[in-house]
């Protein structure tokens, strides 16, 4: 590796406890329903569950058959049904249907619903409304955190993003608080907590409440500082095309729960292969954070090394051969397999991404980030829409344009929208309404109207309500202020000198040297300044809600220097692999170790798909 890594990076805490804890809790809950039972699992819980307890573990605890929740009538013959679900009303309604269908012929079964990570009152209300509250037993499986890798922990709650930021439904905030509390009680106490964003603040408060309620035990801290950040603080980063290997793989093949399925075009056979992508994969761990442009070089070097290792057997005597086979061959074979997979994947990516189109797309993105030649960009996007290149991509470019330009000119706003609707269907009218609400795609406000309105309203009502109104308004016309932020934080490096992607000098390498992710830059700045002082202007541009709180245990904050350099970053609303790579880079540069906790891994497609409104 070409990086000038600091050698004294602290050791990461062991997060496998989280898995063991979750598994034990699940087993306990399953044992609460003794006897054979069929288990229905919410579709998007399948993969996370698989990481915690495999089928044989479940079978050991008298789970007879496993079903995916498909919102269809059940065909199970078991007299005990157990449902392992997210607290979603649709699923609960489906269970009500199942129970009520059984009631008609007078079939008696035992039902148990296990909500994870917690239940909501609304779910119980539905059970009550449907008259089956007494027929089912309800439990909670506090499975908040799934470690995806040594330094990535996910809540696996993709709906957090749209519920919280789009619908304004804050029910997951407490969940985030509880997740933080779990980390705190296992790896805390934290010496300092920083954060920015409304949701972060609320999650922080919810956590504090739980700390105060519970009893405190003196422990050796394993995590130093915590940084909470809302996704809506930085929408630019997740909307950019990812070019770092792991991000690219996610963009193209979609990594699900730390696992990717490579199709036949990658495996060069007729079968698909599922691969776990984490630091245990020796090949992957070396290329995951690399700019794609020199992943290939690395892989071919690796292939040559491998060949040499294989070649060693030439001229070995029998004994040497024996040790070679027993000791090295397996490792080499494994590496060989992985290497060929990653080479296959890279080739597949190359096919898709190195064409002229992709270069132009990247160029447009970079121009947007820099704020140059906006007209050209708009015509590029127009063409993109007209040629129906991709529904999501077009939308992504539109949003990127709007955020970086602080909204579109009314004329552009209309014409682009109209063209988009013609291309992809008029149902996207509602998608636009969602995007506007989030401030992702808005019309430029004639200068002052908002502030005028605010101050008028402010005079009419008292401060508290005015504050609430401001919040409401701010969602109406969330100004992204990207340009100003970019200047203040120097997010777009000067273009006049060549950027050597092999030897990155800052986090901008993530985006070919064109842009330093805003979220990561904020984290860097706050850690450097040990707070928000000096960033007042920045926080103002980001709509405030920043905080920095020193933890209760000021005692051992000094002595344990290593722990102090372990930083937990919690993204509320998801984070991208690029951001994780950027933080890993920052960590290597400054001797930190970052642990990323996120409500879910996201990327531009997931982000925008969550906002489409044609999935009724």
């Amino acid at each position, binding site marked *: 590796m070409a990086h000038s890594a600091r050698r004294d990076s602290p050791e990461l805490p062991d997060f496998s406890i989280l898995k063991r804890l979750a598994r034990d809790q699940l087993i306990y809950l399953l044992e609460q329903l003794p006897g054979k039972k069929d288990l229905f699992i919410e579709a998007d819980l399948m993969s996370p569950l698989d990481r915690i307890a495999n089928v044989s573990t479940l079978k050991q605890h008298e789970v007879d058959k496993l079903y995916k929740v498909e919102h269809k009538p059940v065909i199970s013959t078991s007299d005990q049904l157990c449902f392992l679900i997210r607290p979603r009303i649709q699923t609960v309604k489906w269970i009500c249907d199942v129970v009520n269908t059984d009631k008609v012929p007078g079939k008696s079964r035992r039902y148990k619903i296990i909500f994870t990570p917690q239940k909501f009152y*609304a779910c119980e209300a539905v059970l009550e409304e449907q008259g089956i509250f007494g027929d089912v037993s309800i439990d909670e499986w506090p499975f908040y955190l799934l470690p995806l890798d040594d330094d990535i922990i996910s809540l696996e709650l993709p709906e957090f993003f749209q519920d919280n930021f789009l619908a304004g439904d804050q029910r997951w*905030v407490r969940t985030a608080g509880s997740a933080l509390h779990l980390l705190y009680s296992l790896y805390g106490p934290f010496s300092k907590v920083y954060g920015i964003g409304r949701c972060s603040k609320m999650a922080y408060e919810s956590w504090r409440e739980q700390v105060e309620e519970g009893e405190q035990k003196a422990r050796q801290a394993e995590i130093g500082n915590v940084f909470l950040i809302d996704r809506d603080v930085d929408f630019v980063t997740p909307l950019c095309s990812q070019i770092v290997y792991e991000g690219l793989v996610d963009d193209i093949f979609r990594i699900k729960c730390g696992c990717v399925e490579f199709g036949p075009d990658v495996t060069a056979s007729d079968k698909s292969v599922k691969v776990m992508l984490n630091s245990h994969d020796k090949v992957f761990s070396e290329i995951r954070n690399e700019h794609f442009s020199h992943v290939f070089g690395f892989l071919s070097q690796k292939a040559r090394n491998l060949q040499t290792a294989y070649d060693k057997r030439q001229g070995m005597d029998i004994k040497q051969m024996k040790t070679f086979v027993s000791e090295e061959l397996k490792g080499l074979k494994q590496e060989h397999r992985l290497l060929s997979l990653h080479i296959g994947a890279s080739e597949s990516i190359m096919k898709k991404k190195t064409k002229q189109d992709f270069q132009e797309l990247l160029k447009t993105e970079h121009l947007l980030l820099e704020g140059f030649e906006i007209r050209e960009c708009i015509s590029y996007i127009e063409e993109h829409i007209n040629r129906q290149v991709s529904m999501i991509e077009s939308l992504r470019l539109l949003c990127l344009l709007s955020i970086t330009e602080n909204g579109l000119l009314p004329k552009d706003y209309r014409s682009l929208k109209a063209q988009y609707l013609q291309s992809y269907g008029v149902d996207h009218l509602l998608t636009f309404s969602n995007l506007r609400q989030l401030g992702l795609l808005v019309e430029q406000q004639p200068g002052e109207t908002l502030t005028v309105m605010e101050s008028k309203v402010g005079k009419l009502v008292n401060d508290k309500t005015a504050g*609430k109104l401001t919040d409401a308004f701010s969602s109406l016309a969330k100004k992204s202020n990207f340009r100003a932020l970019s200047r203040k934080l120097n997010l777009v490096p000067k273009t006049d000198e060549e950027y050597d992607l092999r030897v990155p000098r800052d986090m901008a390498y993530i985006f070919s040297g064109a842009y330093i992710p805003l979220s990561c830059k904020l984290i860097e700045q706050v850690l450097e300044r040990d707070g928000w002082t000096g960033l007042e202007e920045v926080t103002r541009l980001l709509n405030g809600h920043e905080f920095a709180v020193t933890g209760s245990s000021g005692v051992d904050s000094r002595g344990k220097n290593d722990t102090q350099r372990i930083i937990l970053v919690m993204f509320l609303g998801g984070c991208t692999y690029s951001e994780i790579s950027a933080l890993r880079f920052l960590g290597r540069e400054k001797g930190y170790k970052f642990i990323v906790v996120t409500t879910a891994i996201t990327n531009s497609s997931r982000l925008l798909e969550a906002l489409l409104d044609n999935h009724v």
Partner: protein
Amino acid sequence: MAFITASWNPLGDAFYRKTDLYEMSWSLRDGLRDSLVAAAPYGGPIALLREPQRRSPSSRPQLEIYSASGGTVASFPWKSGPVVQLGWTVSDELLCIQEDGTVLIYDLFGSFKRHFSMGQEVVQSQVMEAKVFHSPYGTGIAIVTSSSRFTLATNIDDLKLRRLPEVPGLQGKPSCWVVLTQDRQTKVLLSNGPELFILDNTSCTVVCPPGLSPQDGNIVHMSVSFSYKYLALLTDSGHLWTGLSTLQEKLSDVDTKKTMAPKQMLWCRRPKSQQPSVVLMWDRLLLVVGVCNETIQYPIEDPCVLVGEMDGVRIISSSNQELLQEVPLVCQDIFKIASMAPGALLLEAHREYEKSSQKADEYLREIKEQSMLGEAVRQCVEAAGHEYDTNTQKSLMRAASFGKCFLTDFSPDQFVTTCRELRVLNAVRDSSVGLPLTHTQFKQLTLQVLIDRLVYRQFYPLAIEVCRYLKIPDYQGVSRVLKHWASCKVQQKDLTDDAIARAVCMKVGDSPGVSYSDIAAKAYECGRAELAIKLLDFEARSGEQVPLLLKMKRSQLALSKAVESGDTDLVYTVVSYLKNEMNRGDFFMTLRNQPVALSLYRQFCKLQEQETLKDLYNQDDDHQELANYYVTASYREKRLEGRLSLLQSAVDEYNKAKNEFAVKTTEDEMRLLRFQRKLDDEKGAGLLGLSLQVTMETLLSLGLHKQAEQLYKDFRVPDKRYWWLKLKSLAEKEEWDELEKFSKSKKSPIGYLAFVEVCIKCNNKYEAKKYVSKVTPEQKVKAHLAVGDLEGAADAAIERRNEAEIGAVLSRCSASNSLVIERLNQARAAIAKK
């Protein structure tokens, strides 16, 4: 020190002493004569009802409640029926048992709490006698009616009346009876003439105490000890029989030679009693009869009342109160004249030491020689606990402390604890508090209960001092007291809401474990809603405020507090409560002021109650959302007519929302739908629901150029889009002539490079080349490259003298194109020169 033993009277091998507790601070006009008196054990309060049998309505008897020291706690005229018996419960509540079987319960301050009846049949037959008794199950009541039937209730807080079986031959009331608690069973022991019966739930058995012959006469009085373990029976011939209450063993049999029945008879024992005794009281005489046959006689001037305690008997007269008890062994050891016990020696040693006499050393040495110093200290400390007089306590503790100095390895715990406890005891024994607890009683009662009792008697400052002094954790100590104090404070009717709220806040502050919502709930119970709200404001956890606010019907406030708490489940609870409580309009208005609750409810409605959602938007005049709602609904609608009408509603709402763009788009959509339907009907094209673009594509691929053209015009599709579309479509269908015609129809808005590229994509180099010439100069190079014409590209690049383009061409050249390369390099060099 000799005078300590002055009040001691020997009884067998032990001593009895009377200790003065209080000069009673009450002033009773008629003493204790003709009064019903009930005094609770453990230094409990005293209730007094004068002339309980007086029935004239003109002058009602007065019910008075005093502390043990005679301080007035409450006094009020008795307005209910004639009272047979008074008694105290274990939690210091006053029980008044009426003739008609009704039991009224009052608290310590004389306020009525509740009442219950001892059974329907009692109403007719009337209560003759009643007894209040304490057992591990709580406080019980036993009554006997004029029809000679007994009824029992073992725990008045969990009332289960048990009517006991009939006693054969019993007419009227028995000559005497007691309640026994044995083997988790409550029984009645009674005598009728010469016979003795045990009455339990199911049967009535005749019993015969061992060693009591019928010649001794009829049993006229009986008494059971504090622990229900021992029984004393007195016959009309003056024989006092004592034994176990199981009637299986006799302890003694003493002839008191008194044939008159005593007014009261009580056991006087203590734990590890050497010489238990029975105390009998007549009008002028108090007789202490030891099981050893010896007696002590005390004269009495005034009518008195005896109160049995676990370690003695309290004697209350109208002027003073004394404690009669067996002197604890350790006190005997220390204070007995000429005692050589180590404790006695240590006390002596210390006394000499204070006098600066060298004798101190002699005494000390004597103890040390027997290596009894530790024992001596322990004795002194223990004895101090048993002493009531503070000076005696002090001298004993000082002696202990003195002795401790000569010990190296002695745990100070007992000393410290006793010091602290004595201080507390002395404080509560003070006449103004009036809790004359002995150390033994205190240990039995536990500190928690003592604090509770102080709190119950509203000695809040003292209780807090005690808690602080004994360093009780706040949760169990100070906070608990404050909570009670605050609950009491909010009931003070003479103070304004503001004053109370301020006072409560100042005192309680943010003590851990005190819940303002609990205090507020209390205030609300007392009918002070405003005060409750003020108090709730101090509650730090908003979530805690909500349930009470809902109960108080302050739903708006409850909602905003729930929102503040950040607990969405709580918000939802309030919302669903409001939904049921309010009419729709008000409900929606309330939600409107709470964006968080509103969005939560909207989420719920989206999944559960679509119709409500519509109403919600309607109420808010949120035309935009309403229109969106209609659009969403239109997707679910299968029939075209239904769909169109929903879209029309959407258009209307968008109009109201002044969203022209959306109006136009939706109208277009409707137009498109109609158009698609028409074509589907005519040609079976299967267009319905497709986007405009896809519709045009389909039309073109079906060869319906005219219709596509019509859409292009009708919907003002941008030229570029249409050209792209047509270009691709024609190329894909390989209609090259048509394409060429199209390219010439007018100047291409997308340029001609697109033509070249699309043709190449369709692998038709020949067609592609046709368009190269039409490409603008800027794109010429690209076009030439696209068709693979390096020479042409080179020419174009050189002509344009563009270095980048030359480079681009060069990069595509291979070795076989050396001629071209050369030309390009020359050109580049030429440009560079300039």
